[in-house]
Structure formats: C-alpha cells, structure tokens
C-alpha cells in the first residue's frame, strides 16, 4: 500500500479549503451546545455562592429552602465524599483532586467571592433561585489577601492553613504553593561579561478566557447507578474522569455525551457544575440541568493568572545575548495551580542563551482559582521578555528582527527549559516577517510599529480514533475530541487523503465516552496533530485490510496489491480489474466481515510552534486611546491541513492578545469582590475596534507527523501583548510595564499633569 508522506506532491485535500462537515448545522441553529439539551421531567439547579473573599463556614441551614414548594434536592459540601490528595492532570494548571473537590463545593471555608457553597434543584429555575435566598449560612469572616505581593508578606493571612511549599523540605505553611526553577549555566556570573544589561519588572492583571457560551450541563442518574452527562467541555473523558473521581463513581458507570462547545480556550478543561448536577440527580431521581449566568462565569471560572515578572537580559555590544534570568510570580487564586511553570519554561524559549535561568512561584490569593488560557502562562512571560528585547534593540541600535535572528533558537540549540530543539521554524518565521511589505510601510504622526515573537510547545498526549468502512464505501471517523474550531474538517481531510476518496465521502463524528477509546482534552493545540495522527494510523490499518480483502477476492498474494485513489489494484497484472472501496465494502460479508480499525497512543513528536507578530498602533494624544491600525501575524504551522482554520486560529489568538494588552482586566474592590463581571465592563475586543488581521502561514514540516503538522492554536496569543506594547513604545517613547494599556494609563504617562 502507498504510504503518503508530507513531501508527496499528489496531495488532493491537504492544503485546500473545503466546507467543514459540521458547518450547515452551525449556521442554521441546529447544532446543540451545552445548554441546548432537555429531558422529560427535568429539574433546574442553581448554585449559592460566597459573598465573602475569605470566611469560615460555621453552619449551613437548608431546612427552609428544602421546604419551599418545588425544591427537590440540595447538596452542600457535607454531601460530597472526602477526596484524598492526589495530583490531577489539568494541562498546564496542575491541581489536586482534593482541591478540585473543594473548589466545586466549599468545605469548611470559602476562598473567594463566588465560591460555590450549595446547589439547589427545583422544578423551575425561578424556584431554584428563590430557594438560594432561603439557605442560611453562618460565616466567620477572615482577613483576606488579594495580590501576590501581600500574599507573601510575613504576616499575610493564610489562604490554606496547612499548605506548605511543595518544593523539597517541609516548610511552615505559606501562600507560596509551589516553586519551580529551571535553566542552565550561571547567569549571575555571566551578566558581568555583558556590555548592556536591562533589568525590568512587569505586571499583568487576571483576564478571562471569555468564551461566549457559559458552562452548562444536563445530568441524569438512573436508579441502577448509571449516570449520563450531556455537556460542553474541552473533553468528555475529562468530565467523566473528574466527575467520577469527585463523586466516588466507577468510570464505567458514567457516560459523557459531548455537546458542541461554544469556545473554551483552556477554561473548559475542568469541572464546575457536572459533579453538582449528578449529585442532585442522584438525590432527586430526576434529570438536572444547570447553566451558569455570565456573572457566575466571571466570578467562579477561569481566569488566567495575574502576574508579576522581573526579567534581566545581558547582551554584548554586537548584540549577542549573554545571559537571561527571570523571576515569575503568578496568582493561582484560592487553590494551587497557576500556569507559572509553563510561563517559566517559555520565557526564554525563543532564544539561544548560554546562561538562562527562571524562577517561578505559584501564589495563593483570595480570588477565583485560575484556569488554563490558551498557551497558559506564556503571554505574560512574552510581554516581559519581548519588551526587554525591544529595549535592547533600541539601545544597541540594531533592527529588532535582526537582533532576534542573531539570537534565535534553532535545531540543536539547548532550550532554556531543558531539551535541545529539533527542527523548528523560528528563523523562517522571523525572515518572513522582515521580508513582508508591512515591515517597511510608512507610518504617520502618533503611530508606531511593534514586533514581538513567541513560542508554544503544543501537546501530544493520549488520543484514540476509529475508522469504519460503510457498506456503500463511505468512511466514518470517530474522534474523541470536541471540535472547537474546525477539527472535524482537518480529520476528514487527512482520512480522505489516506483513502484517496472525496472529502465528502468521509463523515466525522465526535464520540461519547462509550463509543471511542480514551482521549485527553481538546487542548494544547493537539487535535489535528495527535488525534489526526491516530486517524491516519487507523486509516492505514483499514487500507491494509482492504488490500487483504481484495487479494482474497482475486486469490493473489497480498504483497502484490496496492491501494491508490480509492481502489485496490495489482500493478503487475493489468488483466485484474481494480476493486473500488464500495465494491470491497459491499462484499465484506463474504471476505471476513465488517472492515474497521481503531488506533490509540501516547502521541510524541509534537512540533513546537513559533510566531512573530507585527503591530501598528495609533495613539490619540488627547485621550490616550490606542487603536491597532494594522496587524500581521506570521506562524510556522508545520503543514496547514485546512489553511482557513489555521488562519482563523492565528487571527483569533492575535485578537485575544490585543484585548489582553489594551482593555481586559479583572477589577476587584477592597473586599475582594469582582467589580466587572459582565461583558459591558469587562471589555473584550469588538469588530469596530480592529483592522483585518493578516495571517501568514509558514510551513516548516514537523518531521514526526505524517503530514508535517505542528499545533497552531496557542502560539498566536503569545506575541500580541508585547507587539502592542512595543508599538505603543515606538509611537509615544514610553515603555509601559503594566497592563492593560487602557486610555487612562496611557494618557497619564503621556501627560502626567492630566
């Protein structure tokens, strides 16, 4: 059989732009998202949330609420099993099942405003809401701590009374939940040999992932103990695993049916509602539906960590980076597990340093538990390091792209986080940016251009896929990963390419947890890469079977059979008429039965992604408002299976980063209450804020993927913050070190008297 390789010039589908398989459903309103499910006799449930940032719960009295007509069940922390401490895998935001359980429903203490205390199921959502008001909670209010600096002060209130730094030896309880350190060489000594050293500190605020679909689920627990959950998430297997763990159920008892997901960006890689809905369904004997309000989404899910980062880089007069050192403090929220380790790993990743070291700390504060957000931890690290690199270029009077090229990471270079780089496309991406007309386009008064780079690892993790030949010769592919931005299309295209058939002859479905092998979450930019690899493997197994069946029909040695263009042929004998997919499929009952295969694996060989962004801004000197007027994003995609969806990832990531740079920030009052829990006051970019976002795809094939794919989804959010900040620096002469670059902050810097 033919093994298609990435260099194959005969590719028919890869690199084209067909309409996605789930497209019509989604433009006609028929696609079903998390909140679009209903069951007969269904109850609605609501969550009572803490009004205090930090308090001990003395008692919870639910008697009056339970007596309200229409209330069918209530759960509080006492109703969930005690969970032993055990590390859970939540992408770049490591957490512990015990902590996850406490976040889902508080035990003994609340850690932030919005922390769930109880959940009520009732016949209507209005009754459930009314019942929340009848629950009496007796709080002992405790002093709270809202930022990393205060949290590590010697007399700071402890967010957890008994939590010690997990690094090595036993320490006294503190709000430092974890420390990481990595790097090589001796930066401290090396700084002495540098001609220039820049040492600067930066701060960023918590921001929300901002998916448009609030968290929602429907759960039904049967009298036999079987549980079914319909919900939108970044992984039906993740929901099954965490819900079963938190409720003490066997995995085989729980089936999770994935809904379409209305955006996640990392924020839907954990559970909030599902264990509550199941517990309420177990108690009431009825299906239970839960949908968060937008305010709840802001107060109790996400966000990405606020950060404080100090970066020090030394360079020679000729522009060689001698040493880099960084100190990163990320706010975890009320439970351990910020993305500080990933931030510490990425901060110097784009560059070849002889001496590099980063020190990260995961810090507890009385705010919502942070969650993964697209390239978790990397955008704020890039803001710090790329601002310093920009200042170095200015000081050395070297073109900022030349300076990056001079120090760029490439194959064989020792990365700051450990491994040596394999084939990567950072140099090609920088060169593409430098050669682009945008880079030399003229600017007017009050305008400036910024350039910044960024890197993301991408993830392989565990994937499974099944490929089945239908009796009419069409192909069904089952993936175990929710399709968050077009992965059905890329999987179908790779399958069509393998079989040599029309794209339209491949149907892709997202299986529930009982229909396909285990898959890790849709995250880490991994679905087209890793699940795609499993689709290719399963397709090749099926093609081998098809060849065997044809050999049986012809009574020839299978070695003589070749598969090409949807047909089995015997190239060395042209008297044998080729057998098409449909002919073999129709006759499968006579040659050995149904033809199908599944492939599973821990996928290795992810190709890291590098991105370089060019941003032009215009700063209004009267108001301080920054407008992005031109934006071009360059990225090594390895191989773009469906270029439109690769561009879409690049454009979407760039705009999320622009929002993070210019407007978005969680604003807390002194009591720890979020003051902007809605889209009016938490200002995400809208269409009129933006120009077109030009996406330029560079293809330096990943040697470890059958089609050369690297992940693409996350790298594009890494460079935008520094690209915007460097553009504002160019336009105004002011280096901003604190986000967001909102009009008051910019105006204040331009005209301190104002």
């Amino acid at each position, binding site marked *: 059989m033919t093994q298609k390789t990435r260099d194959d010039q005969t590719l028919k589908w890869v690199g084209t732009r067909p309409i996605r398989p789930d497209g019509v459903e989604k*433009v*006609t309103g028929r696609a079903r998202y998390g909140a*679009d499910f209903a069951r007969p006799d269904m109850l609605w449930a609501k969550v009572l949330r803490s009004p205090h940032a930090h308090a001990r719960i003395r008692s919870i009295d639910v008697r009056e609420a339970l007596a309200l007509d229409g209330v069918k069940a209530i759960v509080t922390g006492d109703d969930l099993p005690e969970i032993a401490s055990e590390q859970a895998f939540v992408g770049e935001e490591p957490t512990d099942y015990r902590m996850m359980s406490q976040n889902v429903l508080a035990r003994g203490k609340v850690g932030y405003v919005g922390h769930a205390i109880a959940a009520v199921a009732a016949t209507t959502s209005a009754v459930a809401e009314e019942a929340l008001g009848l629950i009496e909670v007796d709080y002992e209010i405790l002093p709270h701590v809202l930022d990393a600096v205060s949290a590590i002060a010697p007399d700071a209130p402890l967010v957890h009374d008994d939590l010690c730094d997990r690094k090595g030896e036993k320490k006294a309880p503190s709000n430092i939940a974890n420390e990481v350190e990595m790097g090589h060489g001796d930066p401290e000594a090396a700084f002495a040999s540098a001609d220039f050293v820049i040492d600067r500190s930066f701060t960023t605020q918590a921001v929300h992932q901002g998916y*448009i*679909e609030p968290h929602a689920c429907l759960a039904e627990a049967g009298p036999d103990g079987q549980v079914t959950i319909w919900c939108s998430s970044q992984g039906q297997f993740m929901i099954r695993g965490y819900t079963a763990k938190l409720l003490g159920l066997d995995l085989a008892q729980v089936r999770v049916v994935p809904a379409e997901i209305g955006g996640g960006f990392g924020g839907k890689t954990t559970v909030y509602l599902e264990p509550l809905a199941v517990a309420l369904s177990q108690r009431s004997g009825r299906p239970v539906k839960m949908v968060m309000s937008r305010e709840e989404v802001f107060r109790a899910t996400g966000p990405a960590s606020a950060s404080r980062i100090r970066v020090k880089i030394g360079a020679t007069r000729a522009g060689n980076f001698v040493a880099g050192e960084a100190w990163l403090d990320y706010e975890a929220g009320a439970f351990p597990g910020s993305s500080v380790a990933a931030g510490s790993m990425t901060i110097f990743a784009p560059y070849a340093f002889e001496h590099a070291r980063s020190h990260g700390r995961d810090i507890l504060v009385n705010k919502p538990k942070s969650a993964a957000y697209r390239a978790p931890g990397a955008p704020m690290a890039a803001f710090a390091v790329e601002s310093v690199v920009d200042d170095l270029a200015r000081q050395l009077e070297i073109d900022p792209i030349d300076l990056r090229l001079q120090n760029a990471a490439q194959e064989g270079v020792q990365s700051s986080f450990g491994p040596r780089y394999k084939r990567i496309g950072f140099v090609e991406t920088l060169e593409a940016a430098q050669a682009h007309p945008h880079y030399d386009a003229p600017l007017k008064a009050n305008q400036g251009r910024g350039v910044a780079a960024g890197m993301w690892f991408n993830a392989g993790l565990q994937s499974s896929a099944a490929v089945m030949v239908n009796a009419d010769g069409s192909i069904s592919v089952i993936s175990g990963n929710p399709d968050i931005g*077009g992965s059905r299309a890329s999987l179908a295209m790779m399958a069509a390419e393998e079989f040599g058939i029309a794209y339209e002859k491949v149907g892709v479905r997202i299986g529930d947890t009982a229909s396909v092998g285990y898959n890790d979450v849709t995250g880490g930019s991994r679905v087209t890469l890793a699940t795609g690899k499993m689709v290719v493997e399963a397709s090749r197994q099926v093609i081998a079977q098809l060849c065997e069946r044809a050999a049986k029909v012809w009574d020839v040695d299978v070695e003589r059979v070749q598969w090409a263009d949807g047909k089995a042929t015997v190239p060395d004998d042209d008297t044998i008429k080729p057998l098409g997919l449909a002919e073999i499929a129709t006759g499968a009952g006579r040659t050995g039965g149904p033809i199908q295969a599944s492939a599973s694996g821990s996928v290795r060989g992810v190709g890291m992604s590098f991105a370089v962004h060019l941003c032009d801004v215009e700063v209004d000197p009267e108001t301080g408002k920054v407008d992005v007027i031109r934006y071009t994003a360059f990225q090594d995609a390895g191989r773009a299976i469906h270029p439109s969806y690769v561009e879409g990832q690049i454009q979407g990531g760039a705009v999320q980063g622009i929002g993070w740079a210019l407007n978005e920030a969680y604003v807390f009052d002194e009591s720890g209450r979020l003051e902007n829990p809605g*889209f009016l006051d938490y200002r*995400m970019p809208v269409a*009129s804020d933006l120009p077109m976002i030009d996406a330029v795809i560079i293809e330096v094939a990943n040697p470890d993927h059958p089609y050369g794919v690297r992940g693409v989804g996350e790298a594009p959010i890494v460079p935008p913050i520094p690209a915007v900040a460097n553009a504002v620096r160019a336009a105004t002469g002011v280096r901003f070190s604190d986000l967001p670059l909102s009009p008051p902050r910019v105006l204040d810097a331009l005209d301190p008297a104002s």
Partner: protein
Amino acid sequence: MSKRHVTTTIDGESREFLCEDEQTLLDVLRDVLMKTGTKEGCGTGDCGACSVMLDSRLVCSCLMLAAEAEGRVIETVEGMAEGDRLHPLQQHFLEEAALQCGVCTPGFLVAAQALLARNPDPSEREVRFWLAGNLCRCTGYDKIIRAVLAAAAEMRGADA
C-alpha cells in the same frame, strides 16, 4: 399565579405559548418552544448571541419579555434558510470559515441580515460598527467581516 397566553408568528409559523411574567423572549424560545438555535451568552444585552428580528427590527431577545411578543412577528436564525437552500450569509460564513466554535454565529447571521436589509452595500467600516454589538471570541472578526461583505456583493448581484 397563572401563566400568560401569547400568540405570535415565529419563523413564518403562528405559535402560541404560555409564559411567566418574568420570562424573556429568549427563555421562551429556548426552554418553552425548544428553539435552541438562538443562543444566550450573557443575558444582559452585551453579546448579541440572542439576536432576533422583531417586526423587522433587530433586538436582543434576552432583553425583551416574552409577553411583549403578543401579536408580533419574530424571525430567528432557524428561519433563515429556505428549506435546503442556505441564505447567502449562511453560505458565505461557511465558505469564508467565518465560524470556529459557532455559538455566536446565529446572532451574527441575524444581525448581518438586518444590516443588509437597511444597507445592501456597506463598507467594511459600516459592517464593523453594525456588528460591534455581537461578540465573537474565536475569529478576531476578520473572516466574519469578509463573509458579510461577500454575501452583500452576491445579494446585490442577485437583485440586479
């Protein structure tokens, strides 16, 4: 407390429903009539995911009481296609890959249709400002704007 009886036209069909006084049109569309094509993103009129046409006017169905729909004509995304024939906006959203997760798409389609009814030849800037009430977090708006401009061009051509 008894429910209110309301008679309306939704996507070309006459419909009757019972609602509580406090229920929004969005609640009734989604939870009573099970027309879940119209989405809720915020419930406060900030995201536009629940956009519908009310007597040919673009409204957020989360900001309107269901009882106010009495005698009115409501159009949702579910009525945009004619049988199997997609509306040019729907077709161009697919061709331009103007959706990723797709949850904001129903609102964008309804809002864009309202724009093109008023202004068949909008500039890029006019499209951007008209759609500023619809949030999309996936696409960065680029492909949405292109899809609306392409659909407008096709519809003008069809009219000529």
